[in-house]
């Protein structure tokens, strides 16, 4: 399987302001220290090899949307955040190249930042497309229809031309969808969210918008069980541990520290930091990433090293 990250930001789409780009370019020029580059490729090599990720690039600002390559024929998509718009554009390109216009969605939950991309998902207007929306929530259709009511959006859900079907799945069951075994598990979040586990020649868990409390032993046992032996866990690391237990307690999100603890306990191979705080700059996200690497090393004990990746819009990871 291959996971493609189309949106990694939490809660609200964000964009770089003019001064943020200006600051990055100015800092890069200072770091280049008068060097000249023969061509764009040479300059890119400098950016990629000599600047940190946050100095030379950006984690991006689109909200939650992932694509999993590895089904028999369909597009497999987790959540409909604002990153879905670009996925839709790219899907048209691939469908024009012969790919079947069949889309299997798996929804963590129905909050605004996880569904806002659907009205901008081009394939929903394609009469040849089939869209199957899998959710643990029985009210998924209501949520999608409501955001396209006239008070909120000019194009009604009923104007979409694709064949759209809703399927409500049950935790504890294993489903086979397009050649991939799929399980879901409820998480602590307002109106409930669901973690999804995808297994085919490897296991990937997508677990966003989940609050894990330090003192909640049953939650720890349950999630270490659900994550057990996974090749990759994509986890909500929106807050610091202190934030998650004080002013942002009960907001339904978790921390980098809790993600490492759970992945250590579950014997996970790779943890992907996800659902970045919208107020965080690229440098702040990079700092959180570095600190997470350090925390993992300090707390590893006799375990095998946990590989940690900080997700960004456009990242692709093989499982």
């Amino acid at each position, binding site marked *: 399987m291959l996971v493609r990250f189309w949106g990694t930001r939490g809660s609200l789409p964000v964009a770089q302001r003019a001064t943020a780009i200006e600051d990055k370019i100015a800092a890069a020029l200072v770091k280049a220290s008068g060097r000249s580059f023969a061509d764009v490729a040479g300059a890119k090599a400098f950016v990629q090899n000599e600047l940190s990720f946050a100095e030379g690039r950006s984690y991006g600002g689109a909200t939650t949307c992932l694509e999993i390559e590895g089904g028999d024929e369909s597009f497999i998509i987790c959540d409909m955040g604002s990153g879905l718009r670009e996925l839709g554009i790219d899907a048209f390109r691939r469908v024009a190249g012969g790919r079947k216009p069949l889309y299997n969605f798996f929804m963590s939950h129905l909050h605004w930042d996880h569904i806002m991309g659907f009205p901008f998902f081009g394939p929903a207007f394609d009469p040849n497309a089939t869209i199957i929306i899998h959710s643990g929530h029985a009210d998924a259709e209501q949520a999608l229809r409501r955001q396209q009511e006239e008070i909120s959006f000019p194009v009604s859900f009923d104007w979409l031309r694709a064949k759209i079907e809703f399927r409500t799945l049950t935790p504890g069951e294993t489903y086979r969808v397009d050649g991939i075994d799929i399980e879901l598990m409820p998480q602590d979040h307002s109106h409930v969210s669901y973690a999804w586990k995808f297994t085919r020649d490897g296991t990937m868990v997508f677990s966003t918008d989940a609050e894990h409390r*330090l003192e909640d032993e049953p939650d720890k046992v349950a999630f270490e069980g659900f994550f057990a032996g996974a090749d990759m866990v994509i986890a909500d690391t929106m807050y610091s541990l202190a934030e998650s237990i004080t002013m942002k307690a009960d907001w339904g999100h978790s921390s980098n520290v809790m993600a490492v603890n759970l992945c250590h306990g579950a014997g996970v191979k790779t943890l992907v930091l996800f659902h970045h705080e919208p107020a965080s700059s690229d440098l702040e996200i990079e700092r959180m990433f570095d600190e997470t690497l350090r925390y993992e090393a300090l707390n590893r004990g006799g375990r095998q090293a946990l590989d940690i990746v900080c997700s960004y819009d456009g990242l692709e990871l093989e499982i």
Partner: protein
Amino acid sequence: MMWGISTSGGVVIGQPTGLIDEASREPFLAGLRDGVAQAVTKGSDFVVDLAKVDHIGAAGLMALTVARKEALTQGIRIALARPGPIVREILDISRYHMIFDILDDPNVARA
């Protein structure tokens, strides 16, 4: 982990020693609760002196979180003191310096 407790200058000081991990979570939490209770009785602050702690894991952070909550509920202040470099780093990564005062001297609980 070993746990000691004393009173100095009107401040209750808990002093854990060694490794605070999953295995020592319960005794550490029990020590913290005792410290909170003594501070409540004496109407004083409670300081956890971390100078002799080699490492603090998730279980130790959890115990501090519980103790902080209970101290706040009972109207006393809980502070941490003298963490070594590794423990300090873990507290910084967790941003616990934003929710606990971290003192250089456990006998000086009030800034």
